[in-house]
C-alpha cells in the first residue's frame, strides 16, 4: 500500500481531500502545527505530514548518514516518533523545524550506532535502482568535500529550503555562523563540481 492510497483511504480526511498529493512544500505554519497535534491519533494527519516532509527528512538524514537505507530508516523512525509526541504547542512551535530537529537527532543517533560500518566506504548503501545509486554516489562524492556541519547546512538550505534563521535554530548555532559556513561550503562545492564536470 502506498502512502497515497493510504491517504485517500482515510475516512475522516475531508479537509485534506483538496490538498495536492504531489505537493512537496510545507503549507502554512498553522496547518503543519495542527497536523502535528493530530497525528498521534489520526493516520491521515500523519500521512499528510509524511507527504509534505518525507523528502526533507530524507535529505537531512542523508546529509548525516550518507547511506540510503539508513536514511530510509531515519524517515520511518522520525515519523513514528512524531506520532508519539505528547506535547506540542501549536501557537509557539514551528512545525517544520520541529520535524527536522527530530530527523536530525534520529540521524545522528543512527549514525552513532552504525558509525563503524558507515566509515567503511565498502558498506555504504546506495539503494537498489540504477538512478538511486547514481544520485547517491554523485551527492556523496560532492558532499564529501564538506565537513559534517557544512554538509548539514547545505542540505537544510538547498533541499529542505529552510531559512538561515531556521537552520540556526535546528543546529543551535548563531545565524551568522550558519551563513558563513554555508558561503564557504557553496564555494567549495562549486569549485569541486566545476572540477568534476570539467574532467567529465
Amino acid at each position: 500500500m502506498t502512502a497515497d492510497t493510504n491517504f485517500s483511504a482515510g475516512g475522516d480526511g475531508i479537509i485534506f481531500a483538496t490538498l495536492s498529493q504531489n505537493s512537496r512544500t510545507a503549507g502554512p505554519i498553522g496547518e503543519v502545527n495542527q497536523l502535528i497535534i493530530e497525528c498521534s491519533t489520526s493516520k491521515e494527519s500523519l500521512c499528510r505530514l509524511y507527504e509534505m516532509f518525507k523528502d526533507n527528512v530524507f535529505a537531512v538524514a542523508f546529509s548525516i548518514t550518507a547511506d540510503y537505507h539508513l536514511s530510509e530508516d531515519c524517515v520511518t523512525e522520525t515519523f513514528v516518533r512524531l506520532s508519539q509526541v505528547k506535547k506540542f504547542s501549536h501557537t509557539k512551535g514551528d512545525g517544520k523545524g520541529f520535524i527536522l530537529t527530530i530527523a536530525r537527532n534520529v540521524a545522528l543517533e543512527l549514525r552513532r550506532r552504525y558509525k563503524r560500518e558507515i566509515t567503511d566506504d565498502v558498506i555504504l548503501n546506495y539503494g537498489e535502482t540504477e538512478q538511486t545509486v547514481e544520485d547517491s554516489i554523485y551527492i556523496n562524492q560532492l558532499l564529501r568535500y564538506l565537513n559534517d556541519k557544512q554538509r548539514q547546512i547545505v542540505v537544510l538550505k538547498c533541499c529542505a529550503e529552510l531559512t538561515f534563521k531556521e537552520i540556526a535554530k535546528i543546529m543551535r548555532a548563531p545565524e551568522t555562523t550558519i551563513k558563513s559556513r554555508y558561503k564557504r561550503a557553496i564555494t567549495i562545492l562549486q569549485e569541486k563540481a566545476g572540477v568534476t564536470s570539467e574532467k567529465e
Partner: protein
Amino acid sequence: MKKNDLIENQEFEKMLKEKMNGLSANVDCFDKIAARAFPDKSEDFSDSELTVNELENITGKHRRLPVLKWVSVAAALVLVAGVLPKTIMMSNLKQRLMHKQDKTTYRELLSEIKSETENGSYTILDLPLDEYIANDVLITPFYSCPFGSSSKNNMNVRLYIRTVGDVWTNQIYAVEYSGEYSESSIVATASSKADFSDKEIEKLTNEQIKNVSSTAGMAAASELFSADGNNLIDENGDAVTAADFSGTVIYKSGDDICTVYFDTLYYHNGAMENGSYYYDTHTDCYVDGVLDASYIIPENDWKCSVNLNNNDAFPGSSGSAFERAELFSDANPFMISDNIFRIEPFAKSYAEQMLTDDKKLDLFLTRQTVSSIPFEPTAEISVPEYEAFQKTTSVFFPTTIQKHEYLDDIIIMAGTQHKGYTLFYANQDFKTSDDVYSEMGFDDLRYQAQILEAMINIHGSQFTDDQLIDMKKQLSRINSLIIKYSDYERTSAENQAEMQAEEIQRQAESDEQQRIKAEKTTNHKSDQTVTR
C-alpha cells in the same frame, strides 16, 4: 555576494535539490510507519481472517515455513550443546560475564575501590549529590553523575579520580553516602570503564603530560557573542554571562590511550541561581603524540552503578543544569576578535579575592568608618570544582564595558554551591587577543603552537587564504614568545626530567639491593637450618 555568484548559487542549489529529491522519490515507508504508529487499533482484521503471525508481515518480517523452523531449532540446539561451549569465543564470553557479575555486586565494587585508591594516586572530591547532578559538566567534564537524585537530605558524593601528576585520567570511582563519609554511610557505588595498569601509569608519568589552557573557548565566545555596553549579548540580543575552562584528561577507551586537551565554554542568560547553562566542549586528541582528528571520546563511559541491594543506581533521566549546544564552530579557534576580553579570577595575577558571601562592598571611607554598599556584581558564574581546572577559568566581558560606579574594577562573583561564592575584583586593565598569548606559560604556548602547526599543515585547505595568513602570523607570534621562554623553561624541564630519571634509577638500584639482601638472608637461614 556578487550578483553572478548569487545566480550560480541558485542554480547549484536547484541542481542539488533535484538530485536529492530524485533520491528520496523511491522512499516509500509509510506502511511501516503506520504499522508502528497505529498498531492494531486502526486496523480491522475481523473480515480478513488474518492471524497474528500473518500480521507480522506488515512490519516486514518473513514467515518461516514450519519445517524450516524445526530444522533451525534443531541446528541451534546442536550448536548450543555441542559446538559453542568448546569455542574460545564462548569461554571469553563466560569469563567476561562472570567478571561482570563480580563487578556489579556492591561489595565487590566497594572492595575494588578501596584497594585501587589505597595503592594508586587519586584526586578525591567530596560534594553534595544535588550539586554533582546539576553541575556535572563543571565537576567531571566528560561524565555525568551516575546516581539519581535522592529525597533524603544531606546526601553526598565522593569521587576518586586517578591522576598522573595533576592530570586526570578517566578512571573514576564514585560513592554516594549519607552525612559524614564512612564505609557504613555509603549507599551506592559506581565505576568508570577505564582501568589503567600500573605500567601504563608509569609510562604516562614519564611523558610529563600537563594541564594546559587553550584559546578555543575565547575564540568561540568572540564569534558567538557581541558587545553591547556593559553586556555581552547573544544573537537574540539577550545579555549573557560566559566563561570557559580548559585542561587535560588522559582518556582510555578499550586499549587506546589518548591525551585529550579540552576547552569547555559555557554561558547562562538568566539569574545564575535559577538559570540553566548552555555548554560545549572542544577537544584535541593526541595518540602517541600525534593529533588524531578521528578519535571520538566516549562520554559518560560508566561501567556500572549499583546500590546496597545490588540494583542499578543509574538515574532515570539527567538532572543536569547544563544543556549541550553547538558553540564551537568550524571557524578558526585562533581568531579572537577584539570585542571581548577575559579575566581569570582564580589565576591570582589577574584578579584579587575581595569578599565572600554577600553582595556588599566594604568601603573604607575613613580609617574609622566603613560603609557597606549593596551592588550587583558585573558577572556571576559557577566554576569547576577541581583546582587545576578552576585556575584556568576565564570569564568574558565586552570591551565596551564601563567602569563601576564606585570602583575602577570589574567585580566577579564566582565559586561553587557548597564551597560558596567569592567576590573578585579585577582591574579593568584588560587584555587584547595578543596579550592572551603573552600571558601564557611555556607549556601552553608550546601546545598552542603544536595545534596551529597541525591546523596549517594538515587542515589548511579548510581555511581561506586570509585566515591562513592570520594563523601564520599567530604562529610566528607564539614562536617568538616560545624562544623568549625557552632558555629558562627548557633548561628547567630538562633538569626536572633528568632528576626524575635519576630518582627512578636510584629507586631501581635500591630495590635490587634490597632483593639481593633478602635473598642472602634467606639463603643464610636455610644454610643454618641444614647445618643444625
